[in-house]
């Protein structure tokens, strides 16, 4: 087995512009260069892509599957992406492509779970702070899918709105609307459920 470690080089690599400012469309994204490097056999470049996108993939999966399953699925998603990297035509669209793989993997997880009829994770298995967080996450996951994804990325993963738009390939305007509407719904649900935050 090979291990690709996330190194500090990545920070300087991605730190060319502030994190909250979306990249202009004319600029060649860092991702494209990294994808080409991976295609050329550079595994360290894939490590950099992993570091750049692991948080997004984690958030996308967390919005769909139980917390205990997410870490393994993140690895699955990246392995799948590496296997299928040749099929990615536009290297600059790595983020949206990876997000689609993550969503499909989450769906696949639920399909397999239904087939094998496994028992769901219990909240009692988690430590107290995480259990409470998981309760709130469960409420977020009951929201419509369009709101669920950006809210998890924003509140759980700590990404900013422009960052979410850039990574997932969604329009910043729609991300903004979905975050605000989702937050409004979440406030209503939390107040309605008797939780004070």
């Amino acid at each position, binding site marked *: *087995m*090979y*291990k*690709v470690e*996330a190194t500090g080089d990545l920070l300087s690599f991605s730190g060319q512009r502030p994190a*909250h400012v979306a990249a202009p469309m004319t600029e060649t994204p860092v991702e494209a260069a990294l994808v080409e490097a*991976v*295609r*050329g*056999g550079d*595994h360290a470049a*894939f*490590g950099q892509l*992993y*570091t750049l996108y*692991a*948080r997004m993939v*984690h*958030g996308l999966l*967390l919005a769909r599957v139980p*917390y205990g399953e997410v*870490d393994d699925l*993140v*690895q699955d998603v*990246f*392995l799948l992406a*590496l*296997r*299928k*990297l*040749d*099929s*990615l*035509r*536009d290297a600059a*669209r790595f983020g*949206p*492509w990876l997000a*689609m793989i993550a969503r499909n993997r989450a769906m696949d997880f639920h399909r397999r779970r239904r087939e094998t009829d496994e028992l769901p994770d219990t909240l009692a298995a988690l430590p107290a*702070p*995480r259990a*409470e*967080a*998981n309760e*709130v*996450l469960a409420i977020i996951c009951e929201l419509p899918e369009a709101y669920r994804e950006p809210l998890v990325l*924003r*509140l*759980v*993963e*700590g990404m*900013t*709105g*422009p960052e979410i738009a850039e990574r997932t390939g969604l329009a910043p305007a729609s991300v*903004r609307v979905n*975050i605000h509407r989702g*937050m409004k719904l*979440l*406030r209503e649900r939390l107040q309605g459920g008797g939780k004070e*935050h």
Partner: protein
Amino acid sequence: MTDYLWDKTGEPETDVQQLEELLGALRYEPRPLELPEDIVARTARGSFRARQSGQWQRWAVAASLLLTLLAGAWLVVRFQQRDTHREVAQQTETHAQDGQTAPAVATTPNVAAPPNVAVAPHVERVNYRRPARVSPRAGTQRRAPAVAPREQVARNAPTEEALLASLPPEQRAATEQVLLALRIASTRLNDAQRLVQEMSAPRRDDNK
């Protein structure tokens, strides 16, 4: 306009901050990515494929050069053929002027001409006029077109076989070889072009 929920600028909203702190417990914790050996090997093959694609372009250039050479050779042979036809036609006209019987109609191109009969591709053709046909119902006569239809003209044009038949045996063999080589080169280039198109064809499903 500052918006803490959107880009973390401006004054923080209390409930949003509290949610961030609470849900931060579930945040992604970095861990190394483990790559199986088969994937590593596959990626290495991917780089080999990239090298191969460059080699493929070189082959395409070589093939186009070969095609150019073959086309040049074919044109030379073609010019020689034309000269031969011209000479044969001149001989035919001379014989006609001397009182010998000349062929009234151009030889049918699809039938191989006997070696002693000249086939002149540029001999003037007599416009064929179809005999008037009597309609069985009305009994009226339909007038035949004054000019022969285009298909008929094309049919009367000398074909490759007729042209080859008019050549001396050695020249005919050489011409046939050149034509065969051209056909093979053309087929190869078509295959190459199709492959290149398939390689560069958009794969829509992958970039969703």
